[in-house]
């Protein structure tokens, strides 16, 4: 514990900082270490969903299934239009989890969906096939209560597909594919594209962030403007349901000319500016000696600073 003596306002300042940067806290009490198993048997008919096994809440015509995050869920769907007189096929999907029952009809009267509810929040299970009673089969709701630390995130795999050769300054499509441990595409997750840059310090520059589609694919159009080859990386930051993953690749730029060229001045690294693509209008150009003069002035000023600081050093070294 440190104390700023002589500053009566220090506690208030520190208090303000604490407000600004609150320390996080984790509640761990009462959280089951092992996920529970939940089973539901649901009859699907032109009249809607009817839960015949498992806890259920019927609210304003909707069927609500309530579970906890991390639960192992077995959802058995039973075809219940046997009295209809003709086949009335359904197909039930849990879009948030990327799951689908497959065709549920007289020939396939029982389907089972098994999954671990890794993500919290509400989602819907509904019929995605046009059928008799289709409207009534849109009202299934799965409510997953969040339980901190109750579920281990699922590993993911990220692949980056880039063209081998890219014309400098031309657009190139970078495609990332995000799949889970079983190889199923992960939809609706952000994937960040980065390119390695090197200026004094090496680092990754963010090119953009794209959300994966239903195939788990995120595509970013990249227009390389740097000279030389470009190392690229895609990164999935992970969330409560999926673990982070990343992949990298390199593209080779072809093309002999620089993307930018300097018409006036002298060639200095990183100062190429004249955009050939957009055809900047010809006009006044600062003559080459201006850069030399400017450099000389700046060096002179900073040398003077150095001299002045050296005087302070010599003052400190002074002996009586």
């Amino acid at each position, binding site marked *: 514990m440190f104390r700023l003596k002589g500053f009566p306002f220090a506690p208030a300042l520190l208090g303000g900082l604490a407000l600004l940067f609150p320390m996080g806290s984790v509640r761990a009490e009462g959280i089951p270490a092992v996920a529970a198993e939940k089973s539901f048997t649901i009859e699907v008919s032109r009249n809607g969903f009817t839960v015949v096994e498992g806890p259920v809440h019927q609210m304003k015509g909707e069927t609500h299934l309530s579970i906890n995050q991390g639960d192992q869920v077995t959802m058995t769907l039973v075809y219940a239009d046997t009295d209809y007189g003709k086949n009335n096929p359904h197909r039930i999907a849990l879009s948030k989890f990327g799951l689908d029952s497959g065709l549920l009809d007289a020939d396939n009267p029982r389907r089972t969906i098994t999954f671990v509810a890794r993500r919290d929040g509400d989602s819907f299970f509904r019929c995605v096939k046009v059928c008799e009673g289709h409207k009534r089969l849109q009202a299934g709701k799965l409510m997953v209560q969040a339980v901190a630390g109750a579920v281990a995130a699922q590993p993911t795999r990220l692949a980056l597909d880039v063209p081998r050769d890219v014309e400098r300054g031309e657009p190139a499509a970078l495609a990332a594919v995000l799949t889970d441990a079983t190889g199923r595409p992960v939809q609706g997750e952000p994937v960040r594209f980065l390119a390695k840059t090197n200026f004094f310090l090496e680092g990754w520059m963010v090119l953009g962030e794209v959300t994966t589609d239903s195939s788990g694919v995120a595509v970013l159009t990249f227009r390389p403007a740097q000279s030389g080859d470009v190392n690229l990386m895609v990164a999935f930051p992970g969330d409560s349901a999926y673990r982070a993953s990343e992949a990298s690749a390199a593209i080779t730029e072809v093309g002999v000319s620089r993307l930018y060229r300097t018409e006036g001045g002298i060639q200095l690294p990183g*100062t190429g500016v004249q955009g050939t693509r957009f055809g900047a209008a010809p006009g006044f150009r600062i003559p080459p000696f201006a850069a030399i003069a400017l450099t000389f002035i*700046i060096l002179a000023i*900073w040398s003077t600073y150095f001299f002045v600081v050296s*005087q302070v050093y*010599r*003052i400190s070294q002074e002996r009586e």
Partner: protein
Amino acid sequence: MASVKKLPDNLTELEKVGMRPLLQTSRWFALALVGLAGVVVWWMYAYSVQLRGGLAVTGMRDVVMWGLYIVNFVFFIGISHAGTLISAILRVTGAGWRTPITRMAEVITVVALMIGALMPITDLGHPERALNLVIFGRYQSPILWDFLSITTYLTGSLIYLYLPMIPDMAMLRDKLPLTAPAWRRQLYTMLAAGWRGTPTQKRRLERAISIMAVLIIPIAVSVHTVVSWIFSMTVRPGWNSTIFGPYFVVGAIFSGIASILIAMVIFRRIYRLEAYITKKHFVYLGYLMLALGVIYMYFTAAEYLTVAYKLADNDRQLLTLLFTGSQAPWFWAFGVGGTLVPVLIVAYPRTRTIPGILVAAILVNIGMWLKRFVIVVPSLQVPLMPFDFGRYQPTWVEWSVTAGAFAGFILIFALFSKVFPIISVWEVAEQEEKAARTASRLVPAPGPAAPREGSDV
């Protein structure tokens, strides 16, 4: 509760005045600091909202893409000229009356530069984009010139602030009460740089200060000239001007003097510096402000008259906007309330009092902030292509950042005054000694003690 520590008995009256604020803090002062810190915290919260939501949370859009942040930037860089003028120019010209106010002026420079430099970074949205200036910078661009001149000026100002503090640091090192916190003693010992006041040390320090005083003037002028070129090297109505360099420099010194006058009133009152910062200082600086105000009016007239006479289509739209349109209240508030009225207040002997000069200084600073708004926003509103006029409505995020920037400026300034003497003790003492010697030469016969310079009120 106010913290009161007894000052050592071996101090001169001047040393006591310099040391007292460091050891004693009134309850009201502490409360004010907490209030300022609260506004700064709010600023950081607003900025975090912008970081999360992007620049969409501001009122800036594709047409009017600069707003309050750039207005604040130009304003703070402007008032940073206070230190240069008061300290460097008056030192070079040998104006002895400057000594009690030089440190305040120099601190204004450093703090204003630090806060001002944050504004364009805030304006970028993602702060890491500032690195692009280094990666993709080109020496032909005024933005790069700005970057170079501001960093050079900030470094120079820090050195120039530090050099005259060395003897005062030594005084604090040697005379600080034993009850003072250890960190203070360590800080002063380090910053004193082994100062013992030997002739060689004095010679070196004088040389270093003189060099910096001369060097810092052209650098300061270059800074605001280059800031103006960011605008005037653009073909836009209101910005396409050849006189923007000197126009901005004069405006910067004008608002810089106003800032130092406000700081003088506040610190004089809080730290009981009436014996050292006298009416004479206010009047002298008031005269300078008056002169700069008149020059600024001349530049303003020259700028707008030449444009209005030629009346190109875009210029006509801008002038309509400024003179009679939606921006007219701000333009006339600047022109009349921020320039003409302060000049008249200082020019008229009956209002040339300390409260009168304070009112004039406050009006000048408000007016000059409005002037920067009038420069930045209306020019961007004028359509360069056949579209409608651009619109700009600052959001609460921008107002919060603006309030926080001002609060941060005052907070850092106030904290500085609690750690370091706000007047240059050794320079004031030296000046008093010089005045006493002069007085004794002028009055050969024994008589009453010579009055302290500036104590004529």
